[in-house]
């Protein structure tokens, strides 16, 4: 006996409902990324959370209904194109991508620097590039990279970390120059110290992660490079302007 099954199909997305309806967050298993997933989901964005640690993803999935989760190691760049398309299918589209995967370690050996370059910069490239190619054709979308104030000036102590973040800033700037005329927002967020696992070993003034993410998500809607506090904006604007011969004589570690 023919019968129409009564399961209701989800409504086709309409432009009016919201700008960020569906998002991919790469590096969502701790700190800023995890908090981004929480806050976006609370606003009604359907998120796909990616990270290395399965237990943390499971925990997040239990906490947030309908969350799409995938374990992903950003060093496995060759898997990204298929995974990217698969996630877009699962989400029913894509409006926002945030690359947040990041590593900050004490650079004891050169391999530590290399690892930071790979996770913070090389791992970002396929995600950002695929999103750029897609959003350019669509004529809409937001690309967010989590950089760092450490990418503004390379201080003596962290060559790998600073280089990776400076590289990420440049990569995003190039995408922004390519896409801002096409209706795509490319936004670079440069947090200072935020109170997360990554910065636990650092003794300095840190911004609470909830506050940081609230500001971050607000600023990410506009193209450009953004600091999370006016103090940072002022200090780093000055620091960036200091000529190298003077900068290297400053008492900064």
């Amino acid at each position, binding site marked *: 006996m*023919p*019968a*129409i*099954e*009564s*399961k*209701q*199909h989800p409504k*086709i*997305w*309409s*432009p*009016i*409902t919201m700008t960020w309806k569906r998002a991919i967050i790469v590096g969502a298993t701790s700190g800023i990324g995890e908090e981004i997933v929480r806050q976006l989901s609370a606003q009604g964005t359907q998120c796909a959370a990616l990270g290395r640690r399965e237990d943390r993803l499971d925990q997040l999935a239990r906490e947030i209904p309908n969350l799409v989760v995938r374990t992903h190691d950003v060093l496995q760049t060759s898997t990204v*194109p*298929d995974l*990217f*398309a698969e996630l*877009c*299918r699962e989400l*029913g*589209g*894509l409006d926002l991508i945030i690359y947040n995967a990041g590593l900050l370690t004490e650079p004891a050996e050169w391999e530590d620097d290399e690892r930071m370059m790979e996770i913070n910069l090389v791992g970002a490239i396929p995600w950002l590039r*695929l*999103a750029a*190619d*897609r959003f*350019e*054709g*669509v*004529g*809409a979308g937001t690309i967010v990279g989590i950089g760092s104030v450490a990418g503004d000036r390379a201080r003596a102590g962290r060559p790998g970390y600073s280089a990776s973040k400076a590289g990420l800033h440049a990569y995003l700037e190039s995408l922004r120059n390519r896409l801002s005329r096409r209706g795509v927002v490319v936004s670079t967020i440069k947090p200072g110290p935020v109170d997360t696992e990554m910065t636990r070993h650092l003794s300095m003034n840190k911004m609470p992660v909830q506050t940081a993410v609230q500001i971050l998500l607000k600023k990410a809607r506009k193209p450009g490079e953004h600091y999370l506090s006016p103090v940072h904006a002022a200090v780093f604007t000055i620091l960036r302007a200091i000529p190298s011969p003077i900068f290297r004589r400053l008492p900064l570690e």
Partner: protein
Amino acid sequence: MSDQSRVRRLTGFAGYAQADAYVHAPQSLDELAAILSHSEKVVLRAGGRSYGDAALAPEILALDLAQLKRIIDFNESTGLLTAQAGTTLDELWRFALPRGYWLPVVTGTSRTTLGGALAMNVHGKNQFKVGAIGEHVVRARWWTPSQGWIETDADHPDHKNLIGSLGGVAALGEATLKLRKVESGMLSVTALRTGTWEESLSALESGRQGQDYAVGWIDLFAGGRGLLHFAQYDPHADPATLQRERQDLPTRVMGIPKSQVWRALKILNRPGPMRLVNSLKWLLSGREVGRTHSQSLVGFSFLLDYVPGWERSYAPGGLIQFQPFVPKDSAAEVFSRLNEMQLEAGQVAHLGVLKRHRPDEFLFSPNLDGFSLALDFRVVRATEQALLDLLHRMAAIVFDYGGRFYAAKDAVLTSQEIARMLDKETVERWIDLRKKYDPEGRFTSGLIERWGLNRVS
């Protein structure tokens, strides 16, 4: 199929339904067949003039047939024209009219393609007289997943199933249409003004006798008063009017360049001004009432092309078109009730268009012995949910009276609601058709999924 640079945002004609998909436009019928035989899920698209989500679906391959627009054959003595699926009605009339023929059925925009027209079995302001376009399709060639290319004609058992199958089982390659011979490019048009719903419906009913076209514009802000137009092919007008340049639409509307008119519309496109616009239109129509005037076929037919990009005046939310088809005896009651509901809810259609229909046997046909009322609702973020609620409440009443809806227009009805208009026989026809031609369900669309047609068994 994961090349992100091929993703485009596809939009329905009304701008409300959207989806991002991997778009590819085959350059030949052979390429179309080759791609189809190797792809998983596909949504077919060409003109994109369906109001809702019939020509889009998220994150799958969207085959854009717009490049397949060759006119293959025309016989001047029989009026039989064969063209590929992506040919637009615009291209067809420009070819046919100088040769003394007009399209038997046209939609309100000339950007509709043959492929879309057959998939949706479109109709025009003459459906009451000549039926929908399917009745004028002599032959059609389709690509199907199970049998490759097949050809159907009026005697083929699936001809009236494949026409109207919503692009859900076969892709049209080419079709042969029987065109209508015309002596001139003009219609003689008569206008009539009405004051109430009852009057509008009975005047359309009596006025259509002996006419080729009949259509009514209804002011929903003022309880169903309207302006009706009847038109007849004019055999006595100057044959020179068959030439294209005598048909082209004016480049200015009320002194404003045509390409800019949508901006003016955008300013007016809110309830207060629209109430005024509707009233003015009704009042000013006094000048043409009771007199017969001559109008070009193109001018009368393609009203939606007068203002290019008119749909942009509804941005960013778009509009929803809601078009119930209601049996003739209950039409006055249903339409006036729907009108009252809109007034009560404070969401009144900015435009209402009334037409008369006759039943036919095509799959998923909305056509019945009665009237249809096409309503345009502007979607605004703050009231979107309230509007959807209103539309679903209105749909329930339409179904209570045995009414139907039209796939090319619908953007909101759910599978449960649609189940109320699909009788057992229709569902069986659809299931058999799918089993025969597309057993794996390769063809899909937002509409097919929303109506639950991919899940029936």
